[in-house]
């Protein structure tokens, strides 16, 4: 029994930690303030192979695994959640469906660009009318000759409007099943296909340097061969993608929770009040100790889910626990970290203020925390 990282993972962790410290941290506040997408950082992360971590070398991947991706995401999020979610969404939501469900031709066409980070993929599931209830999708696709014709809209789609966005996978209603329910399928829509409109970027509470748009489909035509996986498997596909994605989001949340600890430990020595370091006040020291407990247990939870996934064992419940616990840790740590920083904690230029604004989405995205509780309860047979 050993839950510590093997040397490949810990070496990767150290490299990403150094990169985040040297390259991302110095520009994080500026990108946040200006809402600017970090193209330069994406390029460098591509060169380091971060976008190819869980993919085989046949398609330009690094020959690693999904857990390696999680380790990298945690380290990125310790410094900048916008960068971390850009990688998470590009790899786990953008490239992974093609890797898992794509035909040989689709993989050859898209994966080398996606795994090298020169192109970003987006995942279009959520609609204005429903995210949790994804089965209620209203976007439709029907065949006309050898083309799919897509109509409808998608909301909150990460990486869907950058200058290097290459595709969005869209879940759409493609018919009615024998039992009368909707037949849902996934279709690859290349960026800039006529009829696809990318709305202006949302004004978000956080994740300012990450790219999020609504998408509108008005008679968008793509080749029949752009169907991803089997017809009617759309719902099952996205459930599989989101099960894994939860571990990655848990890793991201763990990174944010840990980033709060890092910042507070430093500040507890720097800041003086009443003639002593604020860390000497038990109120502050205990807050930071509790924050460390949350970050640590969040990490253990996602390591556990990750190790089960790698072993090919069921991990649904553990992934839900990890996502629920880690996002909770992130939100609580961010709230406390801003408290430790006092007034400075309310200034966007300080990392903890960004952490605070970035944390809330973690209780919402890739399955709300209510959904996680539902999954856990269901798995317990309740």
């Amino acid at each position, binding site marked *: 029994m050993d839950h510590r990282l093997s040397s*490949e993972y810990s*070496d990767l962790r150290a*490299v990403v930690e150094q990169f985040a410290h040297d390259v991302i941290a110095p520009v994080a506040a500026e990108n946040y303030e200006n809402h600017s997408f970090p193209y330069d950082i994406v390029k460098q992360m591509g*060169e*380091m192979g971060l976008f190819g971590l869980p993919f085989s*070398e046949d398609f330009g991947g690094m020959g690693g695994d999904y857990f390696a991706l999680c380790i990298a995401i945690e380290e990125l999020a310790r410094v900048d959640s916008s960068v971390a979610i850009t990688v998470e969404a590009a790899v786990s939501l953008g490239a992974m469906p093609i890797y898992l469900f794509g035909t040989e031709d689709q993989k050859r066409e898209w994966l080398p660009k996606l795994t090298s980070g020169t192109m970003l993929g987006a995942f279009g599931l959520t609609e204005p009318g429903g995210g949790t209830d994804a089965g209620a999708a209203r976007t439709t696709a029907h065949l006309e000759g050898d083309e799919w014709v897509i109509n409808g809209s998608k909301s909150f789609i990460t990486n869907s409007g950058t200058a290097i966005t290459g595709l969005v996978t869209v879940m759409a209603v493609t018919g009615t099943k024998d039992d009368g329910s909707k037949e849902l399928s996934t279709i690859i829509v290349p960026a800039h296909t006529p009829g696809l409109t990318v709305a202006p970027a949302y004004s978000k509470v956080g994740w300012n340097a990450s790219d999020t748009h609504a998408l509108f489909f008005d008679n968008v035509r793509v080749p029949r061969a752009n169907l991803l996986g089997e017809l009617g498997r759309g719902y099952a596909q996205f459930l599989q993608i989101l099960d894994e994605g939860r571990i990655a989001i848990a890793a991201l949340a763990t990174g944010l929770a840990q980033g709060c600890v890092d910042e507070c430990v430093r500040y507890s020595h720097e800041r003086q009040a009443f003639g002593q370091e604020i860390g000497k006040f038990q109120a502050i020291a205990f807050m930071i100790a509790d924050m460390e407990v949350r970050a640590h247990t969040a990490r253990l939870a996602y390591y556990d889910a990750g190790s089960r996934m790698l072993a090919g064992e069921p991990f649904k419940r553990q992934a839900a626990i990890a996502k629920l616990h880690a996002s909770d840790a992130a939100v609580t740590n961010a709230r406390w970290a801003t408290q430790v920083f006092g007034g400075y904690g309310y200034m966007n230029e300080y990392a903890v203020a960004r952490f605070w604004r970035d944390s809330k989405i973690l209780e919402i995205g890739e399955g709300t925390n209510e959904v996680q509780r539902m999954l856990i309860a269901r798995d317990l047979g309740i």
Partner: protein
Amino acid sequence: MKIAVCVKQVPDTWAEKRLRPADSLLDRESAEGVLNELDEYAVEEALKIQEAHGGEVTIVSMGPERAVETIRKALSMGADAGIHIVDDALSGSDALATSAVLAGVLKDRGFDLIIFGSESTDARMSVVPAMVSERLGLPQLTFAQKVDVNGGTITIERQTDYGFDSVEASSPVVVSVVEKINEPRYPSFKGIMAAKKKPLETLSVADAGVAAGSVGTGAAWSVVADFAARPPKAAGTIVNDEGAGGVKIAEFLATNKII
């Protein structure tokens, strides 16, 4: 082109370093060990030269057991093989002893180019590259901010206070590099995995052809006689500006003979 890069494991630049009271040596347990920053530039330069001219890059490091992590980091950046000189006798070695051991290992292996970082962040003496070149009888192209390889001719721009000198020599040569020279790459995960399978030779002081008695604390020409923690910062003087702040500050500076 056969290239050697000499690297050192140093305590993390950001960590607080401590000396051991017993022998005044660095307490290496007190801080995480990392690849000396300037040595990363040396590795990068070697890899660039290899990419342009072919050949093989070998990493050479003298240091305790765990210095192998540092060699592995350089291998994960893309170097081909490692040589680790590890021996209890080496503890406390000074620059002279270090250069003797490195020269002993490097001398008969046919390297065309031996690259160093120009200083380590812990000792900061900048003398080892010069000492090694002297011991090997090779030209020293130190403090390079640019290296050009043209057949057997190596030309560097040596960084100076006012600009640079152009210095040229025929290989084999010893080069040391400064920070300006390049931007070291970050290892990829593929590189990290590959590093585990790359050949790593482990040598003793005897293998380097150096007598154990001539290295280590006992043989060191320079020793730390004594050390003390930096005194805590004295409390400052607060001047409340009630109209005469400028005068008060000037008086303070005059009292302390600053103006």
